[in-house]
């Protein structure tokens, strides 16, 4: 039991931190521009595909460096020549634009790379067990995923809270006019934030590609969960996004690792149902079976009991 808990926690951390890398960019962009970027997960997928192609010629590590840069530049161009022009027509136009962009990127990926799964592998140098616990191996690559996610979180946190650029970004989120009146080029800041947010999605794609497989549906797999995370965490809250990412990562991981059924949970609550009840099918489900819908159940609970999200503020 203990060993299952330890490994479920580690796997939950890997998933949670990966989700946070996506959610952090999304929430940062939302905070500044009020735009929910539907194409964010598609940029994550592009990161994986770029890295796959680069790794064929230059190896994994250069892919890790170059692919996020390419995605970041693409993100900045999307903001500069797409969103900024659409912005004057309001939020609905912006949403439709990013929605269309997601389709465009998904189709482009299939056009250039084909519909099949790519053989994008983790580097050989990380192809060993980092440690063996209770007879189970924890791969070095998963350890690397945790390490790089934590490093990025610390870097992002320090950049936003300790640096002059971070102070300007924080102020521009709430008071763009005042920041512009003090001589700061707010549109350039917005473009840079969009670029960095996209690059973060790119990094997530690069490191997730070898584990979660690189295929044209990978954006759809994580895309909707990332939106669930930013809503649960509180729209625009970076700390909320971190908590929600870890919460969902761990929740799913524990559910998959457990061998409990819905009936066992109901029994814990002192409820018992007979076998011939019309809803029998519902409580013969096991937790691993319902793991994929748990984030959405959590979303519903949060929307009912705390509509602003865990750390979000009610909009004035």
């Amino acid at each position, binding site marked *: 039991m203990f060993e299952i808990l330890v490994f479920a926690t580690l796997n939950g951390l890997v998933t949670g931190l990966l989700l946070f890398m996506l959610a952090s960019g999304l929430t940062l962009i939302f905070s500044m521009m009020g735009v929910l970027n539907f194409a964010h997960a598609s940029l994550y997928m592009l990161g994986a595909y770029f890295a796959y192609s680069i790794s064929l010629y230059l190896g994994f590590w250069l892919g890790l460096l170059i692919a996020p840069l390419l995605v970041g530049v693409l993100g900045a161009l999307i903001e500069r020549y797409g969103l900024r022009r659409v912005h004057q027509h309001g939020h609905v136009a912006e949403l439709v634009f990013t929605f269309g962009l997601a389709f465009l990127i998904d189709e482009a990926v299939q056009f250039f790379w084909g519909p099949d799964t790519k053989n994008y592998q983790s580097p050989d140098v990380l192809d060993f067990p980092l440690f063996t616990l209770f007879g189970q191996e924890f791969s070095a690559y998963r350890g690397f995923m945790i390490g790089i996610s934590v490093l990025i979180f610390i870097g992002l946190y320090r950049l936003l809270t300790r640096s002059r650029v971070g102070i300007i970004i*924080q102020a521009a989120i709430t008071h763009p006019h*005042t920041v512009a009146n003090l001589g700061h080029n707010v549109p350039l800041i917005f473009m840079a934030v969009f670029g960095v947010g996209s690059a973060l999605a790119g990094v997530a794609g690069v490191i997730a590609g070898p584990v979660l497989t690189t295929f044209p549906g990978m954006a759809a797999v994580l895309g909707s969960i990332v939106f669930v995370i930013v809503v649960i965490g509180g729209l625009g809250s970076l700390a909320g996004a971190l908590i929600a990412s870890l919460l969902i990562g761990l929740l799913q991981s524990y559910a998959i690792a457990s061998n409990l059924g819905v009936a066992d949970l109901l029994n814990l609550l002192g409820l018992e149902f007979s076998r011939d009840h019309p809803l029998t099918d519902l409580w013969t489900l096991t937790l691993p079976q319902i793991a994929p819908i748990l984030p959405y159940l959590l979303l519903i609970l949060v929307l009912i009991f705390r509509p602003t999200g865990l750390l979000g503020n009610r909009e004035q």
Partner: protein
Amino acid sequence: MSESTANMLEVKNLHAYYGKSHILQGVSFKVQEGEIVSLLGRNGVGRSTTVKTIMGEVAPQGSIIFKGKEIAGKPSYEIANLGLGYVPENRDIFPTLTVRENLLLGVKGATSSGRWSIDEVFGMFPNLGARADVHGGVLSGGEQQMLCMCRTLMGDPDMIMIDEPTEGLAPKVVEQVGTLLQEIANRGVAILLVEQKLSIAMKISQRVYVMGHGQVVYEGDPQSLLGSESIRKEWLEV
């Protein structure tokens, strides 16, 4: 010195609209180097809109020449970087940033090397110095006003436009605002003071303009305005 170089700011026939409402209907005035000028008038006559339009927050029609350059239609950050500072009416301090961070935001470029430094500001206003690491949102109204003005000064402007700096402040704090305005002028910075009340404007201004119905309706020095009861009654007194 020719008149064109002595002019810090020259606004000619400025028009501005909010939707279909014609707010500014041909405003013209000028501020010379190192001068303190007040823009007076009742609420709703277009004083705040005038400074917002100069600053690029509202789309201008007409001519705005600052330090010999046409700035009408330029984005706010470019205007600020040319040396025009603006302290808005609503004291837009950043409530979740500390007092020091608020001041740092006013600095253009990586370091401050102008007429003002953060240490100097803390020397002038010990209350701000004592709360350097406290969030700006917890300061009193007067302290927020000082912070807002000092934050703009950090950018070392050659001219500063200040919208209603004494609004809602206690008489003692109003005095402090007056002292700071004098200090700003002593350092060669031109001031455009936008006020509804006459008290502080009359004491420190060299020239005054009175606005009414989106236009400048009077221009003169404070003494003449004080002597002109009809103008005050028609355009200023409530």
